[in-house]
């Protein structure tokens, strides 16, 4: 009765000899929504990248066989350098026009947006397009980096609704990174508190005690002070 779609064991990532995070071990079940919560510089984005296999790491990251992962990065600063229309953006992923229209419908956008330039979209529209783009290859798992960052308030609500809908409509497993508590309460089944190492993991209402939160957002943990404690973690 093992429903795990992802198993992570003893995951460490180092950049130029400096540890980004150490000793992460956790499983994610199919259909689960997991929030990865932590302050800036806690290693959240790097964790997603390690799960995607696009940064080198030590330890094991094991996806269930045949799983397809869609990825929505936090920012795409260079996309405005390319005069891409929405239609052409979808075509970069080999999505046909019909498929793109279907997806647009499911993310609450009309097909007239296909002819628009990506650079001309509002932040909320752009974020939904990115989510739609990640959906284009029929993934089982979505990895989101700060799905609500940098979006105006009106746009935030629409992205929220979309994520809630996706969670219910498809049997999607969603992992998202955030530094905002409200998003965690609203969307996540479980939360992984990360600040260079795992500080808590479980249902947000149980695990996110005031104490746990202040602990998580306390000044960045320095490894050299804690190395002797490594055995106590987990």
């Amino acid at each position, binding site marked *: 009765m093992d429903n795990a779609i992802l198993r992570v064991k003893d995951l460490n990532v180092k950049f130029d000899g400096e540890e980004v995070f150490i000793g992460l071990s956790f499983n994610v079940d199919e259909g689960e929504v997991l929030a990865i919560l932590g302050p800036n510089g806690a290693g959240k984005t790097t964790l997603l990248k390690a799960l995607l296999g696009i940064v080198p790491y030590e330890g094991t990251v094991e996806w269930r066989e045949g799983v397809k992962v869609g990825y929505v990065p936090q920012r*795409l600063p260079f996309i405005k350098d390319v005069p891409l229309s929405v239609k*052409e953006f979808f075509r970069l992923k080999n999505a046909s026009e019909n498929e793109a229209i279907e997806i647009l419908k499911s993310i609450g956008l009309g097909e007239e947006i296909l002819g628009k330039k990506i650079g001309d979209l509002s932040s909320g529209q752009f974020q939904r397009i990115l989510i739609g783009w990640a959906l284009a290859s029929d993934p089982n798992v979505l990895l989101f980096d700060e799905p609500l960052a940098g979006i105006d308030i009106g746009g935030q609500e629409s992205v929220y609704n979309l994520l809630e809908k996706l969670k219910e409509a498809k049997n999607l497993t969603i992992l998202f990174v955030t530094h905002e508590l409200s998003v965690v309460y609203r969307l996540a089944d479980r939360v992984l508190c990360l600040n260079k190492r795992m500080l808590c993991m479980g249902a947000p209402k149980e695990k996110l005690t005031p104490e746990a939160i202040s602990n998580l957002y306390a000044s960045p943990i320095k490894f050299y002070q804690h190395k002797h404690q490594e055995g106590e973690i987990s």
Partner: protein
Amino acid sequence: MSQFLLSLLSGIFIGGAAGFLGSLMLPKRMSLVAGPLGHLALPGIALALIYGFDISLGAFPFVILGIFLIWLFERKTKLPAEALTAVVFATGVAVAFFFLPIEQAEAALVGDISSVHLGDAVFAIAICVAISFVVEIIYPKMTLINVSEDIAKSQKINVGKYNLVYLLLIALIVALGVKVVGGLLTAAIVAIPAVTSRNLAKSLAQYKFLALIFGILSSAVGIFLSQFTSLPAGPLIIVSSAFLFLISIFLKR
């Protein structure tokens, strides 16, 4: 075939391929790279002029050597690539002036397409067709890499392999470009058509196509003007290209 037609055809193909490839270099912020690469091809150009072989053949190994040296120094020193590029290309120019025959300096510096031989022209046109073909093939994936390397990698795209092919294409177009615009002006033939196109295009398809067209157009106009003014074609091509860019500023919405 008349000499003029031969020059015109070579120029058009090289200009078109350069504009097309340049449209990939602009979003990567690499438009300027073709400049230093052209400069450090100068020793090769000088050798070709002395011994009378195709200057593209002389230039190509030096461009490749330059790319390799910059890559190697960057790995060894961790210094910024642009500073290392300055070291390598200035050295290339300096060395070239030790043995560049002075009466042929103009051809080396700003190009001379007017006396291209039939064999060289056929060779250049074939390479240009091949370059454009490869650019078209790698275009969607390169665009994705330009937008986000992370997304590209998450799609299991071998970013290193694509970048290598792309660099090789740049080396080829620089080696061909020096024939038309010389060692000094190669940055312009990849950069200007792309920025002009960027001003006007509303989609990627238009952007690619217009960059190609502006590359062709400026070469054609430059070579025609050269015929009537007896000024060198290379600088005229660049000036024509810049003129198109100026027009595009006013048409931009």
